[in-house]
């Protein structure tokens, strides 16, 4: 019982409890509690999700007719640029790191808060102003060169392009600080006995994500600062007329933005890795492989950025290593997918709403991953680059991947966050409506792209009319299906059933405390004896303050409790 002796050793920071603030402002507005900050991120992120989603519907309304009767070309350019920017920086990244990362990660490692609560609050409060700045750019002419803002078009773009730079810079600083905060938290504040190979997989995903956002985001900040000063002061970095290089932006932008793809998907992988074992009632298959593959993806993510630039004019001999490295990313990703499928194999599966979204995630993300491997091949990319095939690919990984992951996480942790259950029937309706309409929206884009329909155009060839109308109508259903989620959330808050500490029978530490968790999370910090996923065995925790969970832990003599 070596671990038991460690629990009695002084671990002062872990056992140190601060009193809860009592004023409204310190409790709900400028709170330093990771749980309140996590909820703040989720609320603001979901509001931005609605705005960005409506922008997407504007795009689809425009594409109902080949001659685009809804918007002029200029406004259309602004709308899709803002849809992309908002979804990446204001919705997915803040929700998966700031939202779920903040609320769940410290609970999972048995900590009372993150390492630097004040810094956490500062990170959050950069987020709403960044959103206002970004959407505010519509007032003076929003950026219109796509979310990638390639120069020289972005140098000539409307005045709002500079506001875009400032907004993304701000959200980048916020994301870097959160990365530092989470990395220190996970490295230094785990409960006694929680070694690296006993950490829940969501925490592993957050480690990899935090390292990525810490390193990559500052490179983007540099690129954005250069674009800003070039636009405002005429300092030549990117303008070829003054000796600059537009390709320089593409290198700097993608050096960040490719890792950013993994910042968006790794936490979703983490969510799926928590949901699947809980609802299959089986240990996760290949724990170490799934954990290390997150780190492998994060490392590889830094070596593949130029695959976005095959058609931009790069040295031909450089294409080969970038192509091969990009294809290698499919290996750790495939390891995860096999691990998840093997977890389901022979499990006693319970298809709750969260589980449906997790299984749907595996299907859609795999499809998006496979088209990613196609696109990594230079000859295919030369054909498909800049077409709707790309749009289909990244919506399968970002909507079918990240956003489905966010939905799975919302259904899974909602009872923990709010203390109330959502309506499962409505949740299942939401899943089926979203899953079918998602595929109907984005699947046709594969062949539209291969047949030659370019992305980012306000009008298109009439031969593509049918599938565009099909996609548009499906996208309206997709938007409407999201209303089911919002209604479900509101309904649950108003009159949802009380959840109790552990409605799903989860085994990670956040389920061992009441729902919603008390201010101090754990009255006594428990000791961790093993992996959380060993369904069928007693819980691997000692010293829990919840007597019900305590009953299921092994006693000091190592005898399994009879109640289990």
């Amino acid at each position, binding site marked *: 019982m070596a671990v038991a002796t460690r629990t009695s050793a*002084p671990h*002062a*920071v872990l*056992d*140190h*409890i601060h*009193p*809860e603030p009592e004023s409204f402002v310190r409790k709900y507005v400028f709170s330093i509690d990771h749980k309140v900050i996590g909820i703040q991120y989720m609320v603001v992120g979901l509001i931005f999700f609605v705005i960005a989603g409506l922008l997407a519907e504007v795009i689809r309304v425009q594409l109902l007719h080949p001659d685009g009767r809804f918007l002029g070309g200029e406004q259309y350019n602004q709308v899709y640029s803002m849809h992309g920017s908002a979804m990446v920086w204001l919705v997915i990244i803040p929700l998966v790191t700031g939202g779920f990362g903040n609320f769940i990660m410290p609970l999972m490692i048995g900590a009372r808060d993150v*390492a*630097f609560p004040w*810094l956490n609050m500062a990170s959050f409060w950069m987020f709403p102003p960044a959103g206002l700045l970004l959407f505010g750019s519509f007032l003076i002419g929003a950026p219109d060169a796509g979310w990638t803002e390639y120069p020289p078009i972005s140098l000539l773009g409307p005045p709002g392009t500079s506001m875009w730079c400032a907004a993304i810079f701000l959200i980048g600083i916020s994301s*870097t600080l959160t*990365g*530092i*905060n989470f*990395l*220190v938290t996970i*490295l*230094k*504040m785990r409960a006694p006995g929680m070694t690296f190979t006993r950490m829940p997989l969501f925490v592993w995903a957050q480690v990899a994500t935090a390292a990525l956002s*810490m*390193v*990559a*985001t*500052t*490179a983007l*900040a*540099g*690129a954005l600062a*250069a674009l800003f*000063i070039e636009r405002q*002061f*005429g*300092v*030549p*970095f990117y303008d070829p007329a*003054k*000796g*600059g*290089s537009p390709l*320089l932006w593409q*290198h*700097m932008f993608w*050096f960040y933005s490719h890792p950013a793809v993994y910042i968006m998907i790794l936490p979703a992988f983490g969510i799926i890795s928590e949901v699947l074992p809980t609802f299959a009632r089986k240990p996760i298959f290949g724990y170490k492989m799934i954990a290390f593959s997150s780190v492998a993806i994060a490392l590889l993510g830094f070596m593949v950025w130029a695959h976005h630039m095959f058609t931009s004019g790069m040295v031909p001999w450089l294409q080969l290593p970038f192509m091969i490295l990009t294809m290698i990313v499919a290996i750790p990703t495939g390891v995860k997918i096999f691990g998840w499928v093997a977890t389901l194999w022979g499990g006693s599966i319970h298809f709750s709403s969260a589980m449906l979204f997790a299984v749907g995630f595996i299907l859609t993300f795999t499809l998006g991953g496979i088209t990613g491997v196609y696109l990594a091949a230079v000859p295919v990319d030369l054909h498909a680059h800049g077409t709707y095939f790309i749009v289909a690919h990244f919506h399968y990984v970002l909507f079918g991947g990240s956003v489905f992951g966010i939905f799975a996480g919302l259904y899974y942790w909602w009872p923990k966050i709010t203390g109330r259950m959502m309506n499962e029937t409505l949740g299942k309706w939401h899943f089926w409506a979203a899953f079918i309409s998602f595929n109907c929206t984005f699947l046709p884009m594969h062949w539209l792209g291969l047949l030659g329909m370019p992305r980012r155009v306000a009008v298109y060839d009439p031969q593509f009319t049918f599938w565009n109308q099909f996609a548009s109508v499906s996208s309206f259903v997709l938007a409407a299906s999201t209303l089911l989620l919002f209604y479900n959330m509101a309904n649950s808050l108003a009159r949802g059933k009380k959840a109790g500490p552990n409605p799903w029978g989860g085994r990670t530490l956040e389920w061992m405390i009441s729902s919603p968790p008390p201010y*101090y999370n754990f*009255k*006594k910090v428990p000791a961790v004896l093993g992996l959380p996923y060993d369904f069928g065995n007693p819980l691997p925790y000692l010293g829990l303050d919840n007597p019900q969970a305590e009953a299921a832990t092994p006693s000091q003599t190592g005898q399994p409790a009879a109640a289990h």
Partner: protein
Amino acid sequence: MAAVLHGDDHGHGHGGGFVENEVIYQETRDMRLLGFVLFLMSDVVLFSAFIFAYLYLRGTVPVWPPMMNGTQLPRLDVAFAAVNSIVLFGSGVTMHYALENWKHGKRGEFDFWMLSTIVLGTAFLGGQAYEYAHAQIGGWSGSIFGASFFTLTGMHGFHVFVGVVFLAVLWWQTKKGVYDETHHFGLTAGTLYWHFVDVIWVALFYLFYIF
């Protein structure tokens, strides 16, 4: 509420004994140190991004310094910059002695070395201002040379300026009794930051004046 939270907690918490408070201090300091080092690492990436931009742009022209309006721009004045660099590196040495003396409780020596560091840092900024006024490379927006030189050294200069303010605040804090011989995280962080600024300058000096 507070009583509930503070009781039944192995006796730690506010007003715990000396040993408990010391352990809390050590663990908190370790976390802050790691966080600060990670912050410096992300700052290194920011500089690396601009250094990459500079080298990339430099690779796009046949001659360096590049042409502007039909004539080749002159090289920067390496002699003056070398003297100014020695001032900055000297301040790294004085900062080292400041921290060492503080650890050994020599407050008088600490004051001398700390104030020397602040004076040398300010002198470096003065030297850089002089150089900006006299550099004949066509200004910030004239060419890619001016763009990368003024942006990178300006960013570094801003870091030095922040460092001087940081050190001045630390010195004022020592007068207020914030630190003692063993509890001086702020001084450790300030020293780390100051050495970081020095190291960045080594790279910039080589890349702009010698390379």
